């Protein structure tokens, strides 16, 4: 009995601690859940509805039946995936190249982190100034005699592939991923890599068998966060994305401010789609994480 008492007390404490943690988590989630409930209610015409609208599934069916909606979803997925992919490549390259303690390494890491505090709106403006057909790159090409008129510069802003938007967001998000990557390597990588090299692994083999497995497992949550953030980014898309297809956040804004009041609630349906994309990314991460083999270097 006397030996069991501390164990029981520990269990009670643990349960209380867990309850408090769950309560905190629920409170944090509440605004999202309320927002989601509101968006679904508005999609159905139950809340935030015009006077003459009746609750129905018609709006959801109409928005989901529109080609523009799915063009927008696919285009947004393309931009989010390619920008996130480029950002990961850049971040890993920075982390590996500037992993040491030398001054050059510190400067390299600091430079790579520079875009981090920059607002996305400013990053978008920089994208326009740099990549527009009359931007800095075009002016440099003109000075070098490569082009004569702005239209000869390959279109990278408002372009249907979203190249300018992808490059801008990749550059902006790379900073965050580079910091996470550098921290991962600094805390976990050195000893394992050294062991691999001592055992005769080439630098490429070391990267492939030690550095990359270690990095991708650690980076995965940050990558999901970046993907979700890029998919939902409005500011940079507003400045750099084409008018067709519309990026999903722009579609939400467009529908919410359509001259036709009857289309305003379409924005709620589109915003729920955006949330579905974000949730799917998080769920995919959880699914992968539950199945990956723990990495023991």
């Amino acid at each position: 009995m006397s030996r069991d008492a501390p164990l029981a007390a520990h269990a009670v404490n643990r349960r209380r601690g867990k309850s408090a943690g769950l309560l905190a988590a629920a409170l944090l989630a509440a605004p999202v859940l309320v927002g989601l409930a509101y968006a679904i209610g508005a999609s159905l015409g139950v809340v935030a509805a015009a006077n003459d609208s009746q609750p129905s599934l018609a709006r959801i069916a109409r928005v989901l039946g529109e080609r523009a909606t799915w063009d927008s979803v696919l285009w947004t997925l393309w931009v989010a995936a390619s920008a996130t992919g480029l950002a990961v490549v850049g971040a890993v390259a920075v982390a590996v190249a500037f992993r040491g303690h030398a001054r050059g390494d510190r400067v390299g890491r600091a430079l790579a982190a520079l875009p981090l505090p920059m607002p996305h709106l400013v990053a978008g403006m920089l994208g326009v100034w740099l990549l527009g057909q009359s931007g800095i790159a075009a002016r440099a090409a003109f000075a070098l005699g490569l082009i004569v008129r702005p239209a000869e510069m390959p279109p990278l802003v408002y372009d249907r592939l979203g190249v300018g938007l992808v490059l801008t967001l990749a550059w902006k998000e790379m900073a965050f991923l580079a910091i996470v990557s550098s921290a991962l390597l600094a805390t976990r990588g050195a000893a394992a890599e050294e062991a691999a090299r001592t055992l005769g692994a080439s630098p490429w083999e070391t990267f492939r068998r030690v550095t990359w497995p270690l990095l991708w497992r650690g980076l995965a949550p940050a990558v999901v966060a970046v993907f979700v953030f890029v998919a939902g980014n409005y500011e940079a898309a507003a400045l750099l994305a084409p008018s067709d297809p519309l990026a999903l956040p722009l579609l939400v804004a467009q529908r919410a401010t359509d001259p036709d009041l009857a289309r305003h609630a379409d924005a709620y349906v589109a915003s729920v789609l955006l949330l579905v994309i974000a949730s799917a990314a998080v769920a995919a991460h959880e699914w992968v994480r539950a199945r990956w083999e723990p990495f023991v270097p």
Partner: protein
Amino acid sequence: MHFDSLTVRRHVTRLVTVPVLAVLAGLAACGAHDGLPAGQADIDAVRGLPWDSVVGRARGTEVVWRMWRGDPSINAYVDGWVAPRLRERYGIALRAVDGHGPELVNQLVVERGSGRRAGTASLLWINGETFANLRKEGLLAGPWATRLPSAAFVDTASPIVRRDFEQDPAGFESPWGRVQFALIYDTLRTPLPPRSVADLAEWIRAHPGRFTFDQGFAGTTFQKILLYALNGGVSRFQGGFDSTRYIDARVNVFAWLDSLRPFLWRRGETFPPDVAAMHRLFANDEIDFSMSNNQNEVITKADHGVLPRTASPLLLRDGTIANTHFVGIPFNAPNAAGAMVVADFLLSAEAQLEKQRPGVWADGTVLDVARLPEPWRGRFARLGTDPRQLPRDSLARYAVPEVSPRYHELIAADWRAHASAFTRREGAR
């Protein structure tokens, strides 16, 4: 002891449900109805009172004015000229906040959903389809506008001032200013600009990649100009919305645009989002024309360095749309009396004169200057004009009115769908 998955799930369910219900209950409690909405109640309360009493009620209050804040010239006029005078003369603290067009409607629909008597804004800058939607939804308080002392001098003889996109303001909005659509071109780059819709088509074909229009309000107005010009003039669209007529006319507009798509900027596969982007492309020599719903915007924008000094407004002889913008009071305005005093001041000869100055905003007056007492009549007559301004007789000759807002609403959405389908078709070839 450990938590099994069922226990955890039960905890999570309870812990998630409780706060969500609490928040919803809170929202519902906030939403309890409490009599007539504040704005309408205020207007009803002052209906029989003399104007001095309205001013008395407004004294020492704050008026939140939700308006478009995208133009530094307009902001400077409102914040730097109107607001100090209101404070000095009426003790009214005017606070202009951002929000325009459909955003205003959304905001008020949400506020109505909350059920609270009083909202946040007491005055709104509106016109056209925003007025139509607000009226349809019963989100404006009134009538009040005709009882403003300054309303006696409004140019009611002008159909453009008397009507808002063919709608009778019915005292639910008070006119504030008058503008006319104009293309913007550079007199150096394009010394011989096109002067008609037909000339414009020729010019676009001869200058591939140098013309486009935005996907915002100005671009839609440009399409409505085409709607009139390519379908026998504005008179065919007056007298309310006609669905059959619209569908027939739309075909001509889209056919005209489709025939020019390969010659538009970026081959018409993408369009700038708004006039700000148009101005940027124009200033950077990526396109040769920008556009504005205010024929004088080019002057203030050139003075601010946004557009080149050599930029100038251009009217198309087929007719360019002129319209009036208004101020309205929302149904739940917390300070309707204060908003009425502000609206009256905005309509005063003094405020209208200042607003019309080329260096200030160059926004046209809605007053019938000929009926104004001296010294105001003389002051308007002596108002300096900028050599870049279009002559008044040209503006009057080519002005065409707005028609039912339904045309505006439909052509904007239909164009998006049509443009997208056209690009897909062309891309598939």
